[in-house]
């Protein structure tokens, strides 16, 4: 194995680690509503979410194509740039996870790659049209749209079932949440796993293993699907432990409307290849379902945090990605830089995890004001 292949192997491993952390990080978004309304027992909800995340990764490749073709100039990409971008995304994800900011893994990934590309090749290497049209504008619209759809959806639900006995209605919506939660997990798997597929494909093109117009290889799809599903499954157990005190209560109708709306927005956007932030979209839907019932039910501080995270993620991940590229480049174009940075990254990750877990993990996707 020569230098470029070692870097490629590190990039693939880092991308899959990123995918794993994406699933780990986002499990709360996907299953919290289902568990908090007691639609499914935690163990079943998490297992189902992991399986459907895996299945969802096989549904479409439109987002992977956007990541591989529409953000940066493929001809100028190197595996070291992608590596730096991935490290930038992981570092930013860890920092925001540590401080409980609901940041987007997707924006972090795109920001990291753009930052590394900027430092390596300058502004002409960035496809600003693609970045604005495929990433920034959809990212702005998605949470607002999810908020509006979920808000309208829950009003329709209450209008139709308003005068019925609450017991059977709640049981009905809990049953519906099995379906809406499943669709949400499917949507999450298809949009988020594809980002990793796109990055690995881009690395394979940069390393000369694939032609520029090649399709995403099957092994890439399977490995990305497996990584996100494993992350979802293992992340779920952390959430179950903290569920009793930190997840916010919604009624089953709100849970159903929020999950269904989030899934609808993510699936519709995925169809056109928009790499959305699933975190922000689901948060928007949860808040919409909460706000339609009672404006004060929404923790607007969380909404503010989402806006702050939305604004900060792309530039900050880009900054870290650029910095990592600069550090890696000090050691030349060989494998030494990525190997040293990867080793430092592993140490940093373990340090942050240990510190955070000692303090108790934060769950940030919430809407209703009363903790159980």
């Amino acid at each position, binding site marked *: 194995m020569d230098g470029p292949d070692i870097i490629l192997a590190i990039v693939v491993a880092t991308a899959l680690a990123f995918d794993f952390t994406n699933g780990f990080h986002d499990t709360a978004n996907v299953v919290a509503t289902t568990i908090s309304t007691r639609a499914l027992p935690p163990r079943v909800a998490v297992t189902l979410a992991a399986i459907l995340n895996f299945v969802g990764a096989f549904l479409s490749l439109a987002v992977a194509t956007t990541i591989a073709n529409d953000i940066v100039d493929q001809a100028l990409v190197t595996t070291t740039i992608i590596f730096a971008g991935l490290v930038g995304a992981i570092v930013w994800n860890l920092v925001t996870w540590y401080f409980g900011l609901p940041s987007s893994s997707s924006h972090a990934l795109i920001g990291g790659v753009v930052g590394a590309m900027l430092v390596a090749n300058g502004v002409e290497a960035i496809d600003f049209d693609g970045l604005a*049209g495929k990433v920034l504008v959809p990212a702005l619209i998605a949470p607002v749209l999810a908020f509006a759809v979920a808000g309208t959806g829950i009003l329709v639900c209450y209008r139709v079932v308003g005068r019925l006995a609450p017991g059977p209605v709640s049981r009905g919506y809990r049953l519906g949440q099995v379906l809406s939660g499943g669709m949400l997990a499917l949507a999450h798997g298809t949009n988020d796993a594809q980002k990793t597929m796109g990055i690995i494909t881009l690395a394979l093109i940069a390393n000369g293993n694939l032609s520029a117009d090649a399709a995403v290889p099957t092994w890439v799809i399977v490995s990305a699907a497996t990584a996100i599903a494993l992350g979802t499954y293992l992340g779920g157990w952390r959430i179950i432990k903290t569920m009793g005190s930190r997840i916010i209560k919604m009624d089953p109708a709100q849970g159903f409307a929020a999950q269904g709306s989030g899934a609808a927005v993510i699936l519709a956007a995925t169809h056109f290849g928009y790499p959305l932030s699933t975190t922000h979209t689901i948060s928007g839907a949860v808040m919409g379902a909460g706000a339609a019932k009672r404006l004060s039910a929404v923790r607007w501080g969380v909404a503010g945090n989402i806006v702050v995270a939305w604004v900060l993620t792309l530039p900050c991940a880009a900054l870290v990605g650029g910095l990592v590229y600069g550090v890696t480049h000090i050691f030349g174009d060989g494998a030494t830089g990525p190997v040293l940075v990867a080793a430092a990254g592993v140490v940093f990750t373990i340090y942050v995890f240990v510190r955070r877990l000692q303090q108790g993990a934060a769950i940030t996707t919430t809407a209703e004001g009363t903790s159980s």
Partner: protein
Amino acid sequence: MLALATKVVDFGQLAQVIYVSLIAGVGVSLAFSIVIRGAVRAGEHRRTRPVAAAAHGLMAVAGLLIVLAAVVFGVSTMLSK
């Protein structure tokens, strides 16, 4: 400025995302609520008003078929791309 925005952003596609999300999200909420309403009312009228119970039961089945059709349509559309 508007010309630049039109060049960069595919507003047609975004509009499709918006109206498809609205129709799917709100439509499924409506259809599933009809399922619940139909099922609950059918249960209430089962012994006293069998015709009304049957009508509500049919309404519930129709709502359920719409929900299932929406899910199948959504997944098959994703698979077709």
